[in-house]
């Protein structure tokens, strides 16, 4: 019994662990007289700290139990509450993952939003080797403009080459052997 009383002493000081609190709850259910012990310890505690105490009616708890007995039982779904620490960890992990993806994208110097080589954005079309020559490079056109020539050499030309390499338009000489979904543009028209 001393062990239970010691737990009561710790309980009123908020020094019990949760599993001990549950054990105490079982003890209270088996021995309701222990609740009087709680009252007396609390009286002593109040009298010491404030030199005053209130005597609680012996039926204080019983009246509350009676009042609650008429109330319906709570039967909420047993979902363990998501701890704040877990949420923070998940948010941090998401941020780190995002930063990692962005860093890789920046390092690879790839466009962030649209990647036409990606399997999810479009199916890759393999072009026959003999048709590679059908592409018309943008470079000669740019070289015709003497003003832009020098400024575009290092910036525009690679960009235009890039656009052509990933362009869905396919320049043909009229050969009708391309998939129907491709945009075809003929250039050797009569």
């Amino acid at each position, binding site marked *: 019994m001393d062990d239970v009383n010691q737990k009561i002493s710790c309980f009123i000081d908020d020094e019990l662990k949760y599993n001990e609190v549950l054990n105490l709850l079982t003890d*209270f259910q088996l021995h309701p007289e222990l*609740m009087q012990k709680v009252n007396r310890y609390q009286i*002593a505690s109040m*009298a010491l700290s404030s030199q*005053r105490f209130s005597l609680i009616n012996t039926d204080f708890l019983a009246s*509350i*139990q009676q009042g609650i007995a008429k109330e319906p039982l709570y039967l909420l779904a047993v979902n363990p509450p998501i701890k704040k620490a877990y949420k923070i960890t998940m948010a941090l992990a998401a941020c780190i993952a995002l930063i990692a993806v962005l860093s890789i994208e920046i390092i690879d110097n790839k466009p962030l939003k649209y990647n036409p080589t990606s399997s999810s954005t479009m199916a890759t079309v393999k072009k026959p080797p003999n048709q590679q020559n059908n592409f018309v490079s943008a470079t000669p056109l740019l070289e015709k403009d003497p003003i832009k020539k020098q400024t575009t050499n290092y910036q525009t030309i690679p960009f235009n080459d890039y656009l052509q390499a990933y362009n869905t338009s396919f320049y043909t000489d009229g050969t009708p052997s391309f998939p129907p979904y491709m945009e075809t543009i003929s250039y050797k028209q009569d």
Partner: protein
Amino acid sequence: MNNKLKISKDIDNDLVNKVQQGDKSAYDLLVLKYQYRIIQLVNRYIKDPSEAQDVAQETFIKAYRALANFRGDSAFYTWLYRIAINTAKNYLLSRSRRYSDYQVDIQEAEQVENAPQLQSTDTPECLLMNDDIVSTIETVIDNLPEEMRIAITLREFEGMSYDGIAQTMECPVGTIRSRIFRAREAIDKKITPLLDKR
């Protein structure tokens, strides 16, 4: 946040979860834990002890009814504290409607929050009994072995945690638990006959 407060908050939230899952007996523990604090709080507003206890009971019943809405964002006691104050104020307002000559002075109650000794309107018998018990407890404490006296004094007068007392007295927490418990048992043996006389 203080570690001890955090543990207490966690335990309260765990008990609330148990109640929310249908275990009404878990609510008994919460009542036992906070009954004196709530009665003291209500006493600041309602000076009659029996009325204060009625209002405290109503507070706990109201809290139980509202428990489904408690999400644990604040500590359970903070939430209960607000319910108690509102219940006490509503009680005073309803009483003032019944007795028009009664002046409700809620502001006065709030101003004397930290001076509980000013709010007593106890009968002389109650005051005598109060003095009797307080002096008995003080005598018991004076006669306790020194290590027990220091432990209970640091706990009750200084409000220190067991860890803090253990550090101050340079001994294990388990020893402090035991010393405080034995001091309480010594007090309990002396005050039980006085309380039974009532």
